[in-house]
């Protein structure tokens, strides 16, 4: 039984190594090495992809570090979906789907960062209360969380979290951070961003992203690589841009194609397939630049 199956806590950042049984019919390989030769990178990607395809997986996703001169070589040769700068190198997403594009393509026009102010009547909080379980479950159920999983997360108290509460102190918007040691770097993924339907339209999503990014800088110390993978169907990527995050689009458009299935937003193309492609969405990778 996996940790997820034991606790019900949903994770996004993944673990190191090859996982051909990742969620949403994906193969995932987090490999914290630096590639300085395109042949080695191509070989490893091809081997990983071949095994993923042999196993009938829907999507293969390879995340690793790539030297800048190698990035220039593989551009247009390997399916780089996103790349974000880490010192002089790049944390690179190489990904591909076995099926044709399903998600509705969202526009890639950027929005400018803006001064974010928490509107009056809302309270910012970085800690959970036992009474939050029901409300957090109502926000995260769409991501596959169970009530028990939420309760376990609150009890553990180890997950960096930002919560926006209303005047009655109910959690009406939230987001958490997960971390992964990636070689000598720490990856911090901002994830599970959710705003209650009744509270949308007040810019709360951008506040969540900005505040959690700041909070994690203090929480983890040093210079973690802070990023998020934002649902483009719901426009979450634009919220991240308003919060000042930067698209990981140095060598591609920064979009993870048909990355994850979430039952939100308009329905995508329904294709007859052995995979579940009904609610797949594109996600844009954005990262926290130095302030």
């Amino acid at each position, binding site marked *: 039984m996996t940790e997820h199956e034991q606790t019900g806590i949903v994770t996004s950042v993944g673990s190191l190594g090859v996982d051909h049984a990742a969620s949403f019919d994906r193969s995932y390989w987090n490999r914290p090495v630096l590639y300085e*030769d*395109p*042949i080695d990178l*191509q*070989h490893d990607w*091809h081997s990983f*992809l*071949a095994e993923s*395809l*042999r*196993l*009938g997986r829907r999507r293969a996703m390879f995340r690793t570090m790539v030297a800048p001169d190698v990035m220039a*070589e593989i551009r*247009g*040769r*390997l*399916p780089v979906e996103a790349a974000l700068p880490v010192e002089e190198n790049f944390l690179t997403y190489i990904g*591909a789907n*076995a*099926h*044709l594009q399903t998600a509705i393509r969202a526009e890639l026009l950027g929005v400018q960062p803006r001064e974010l102010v928490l509107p009056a009547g809302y309270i910012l909080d970085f800690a959970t209360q036992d009474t939050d379980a029901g409300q957090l479950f109502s926000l995260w159920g769409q991501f596959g969380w169970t009530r028990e999983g939420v309760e376990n997360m609150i009890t553990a108290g180890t997950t960096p979290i930002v919560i926006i509460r209303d005047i009655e102190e109910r959690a009406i918007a939230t987001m958490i951070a997960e971390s992964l040691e990636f070689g000598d770097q720490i990856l911090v993924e901002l994830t599970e961003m959710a705003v209650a339907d009744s509270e949308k339209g007040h810019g709360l999503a951008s506040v969540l992203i900005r505040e959690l990014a700041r909070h994690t800088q203090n929480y983890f110390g040093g210079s973690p690589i802070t990023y998020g993978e934002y649902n483009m169907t719901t426009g979450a990527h634009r919220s991240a841009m308003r919060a000042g995050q930067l698209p990981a689009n140095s060598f591609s458009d920064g979009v993870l194609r048909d990355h994850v299935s979430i039952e939100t937003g308009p329905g995508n193309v329904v*294709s*007859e*397939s*052995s995979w579940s492609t009904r609610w797949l969405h594109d996600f844009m990778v954005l990262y926290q630049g130095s302030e």
Partner: protein
Amino acid sequence: MNIYYPRNHQLHHPQTEFFNGEMIPHSEVPSRLENILSALEGSAHTLLAVDRVTDFAAIWHELSQIHSPEYLVWLWNTQVLQAVYPSVFSATGVLEKTWHQSIQWGRFVTDIFTPLLPHTWEVATTTAQCIFMATNECLQNRTSSLVLARPPGHHAGRSRAGGYCYLNNAAFAAQILSKSGRVAILDVDFHHGNGTQDIFYDRDDVVTCSIHADPRRKFPYFAGYEAELGVGNGVGYNRNFPLAAGITDTQYQPLLEEALAWIAQFEPKFLIVSLGLDTHESDPIADFALTTGYYQTMAKTISGLGLPQITVLEGGYSTTSIGENMVSFLGGARSIGAKKPGRR
């Protein structure tokens, strides 16, 4: 008869090819298939347009039995490239790991007229889906069908694209059917089915036989000779009939009968026909002299084997006569696994 074809085939549209020092319009173009579809309008056959791959895992598994995984992944990855026309090739086959694109392309392609286009993989695998559906139909009902394949496949070998071919459609069908009994592949394209021969050269569960232009004078030049009989377990299970230019209906017919008699001795359970209509007298890149009416005779003769049969379109480059030639062939094939009239 059910006739399968990839609805998206027009996405694979090579514009030009370089031949004998000249850049000329490419011969393997979408209008080939469109001409056939037009000719079949109103026919009693059931035209089944296949939109996309829906059985990817199963198809990938079977393709991996006839093509090397290394080749398949490379081909799959060409989706991210712009149009690529390989131009330099290895004469020795000895290649070291290298990053240079020309070497990588030359490693997996045999000639300069088989470009890798952004939609090549998508269309080729949709054609594979057509084959997959036709073989399922064949296994379930023992009925015969036709696959209007684009791009064609019989020059695609285990690890090489070439001759306008990327995935070997006929070999793919044979691979699937071979689990249920011996399969024979009869290749009646103008050009030798060198890819098909390469794939099954050491196997005795798939018999391969090709009637074609003598490779001493026509593509693929380096395969298709009488002396090529198979290796290992495959010795005696491959046969080639190289022919001179100008072959007529009456000259072709006894050779076809001889080929079928040779196939029959192996008592196959299924027959795959690699049908090239470039044997027609009007074909712009070939030099046989078969007539439109003969294709009906050809089909009737082949059906004499009495086997469930999947016919796979290979070559045929006269975009004005390929349709009527296919109609003629189907006129002779109609009695095989005939079903009630269908609709488009």
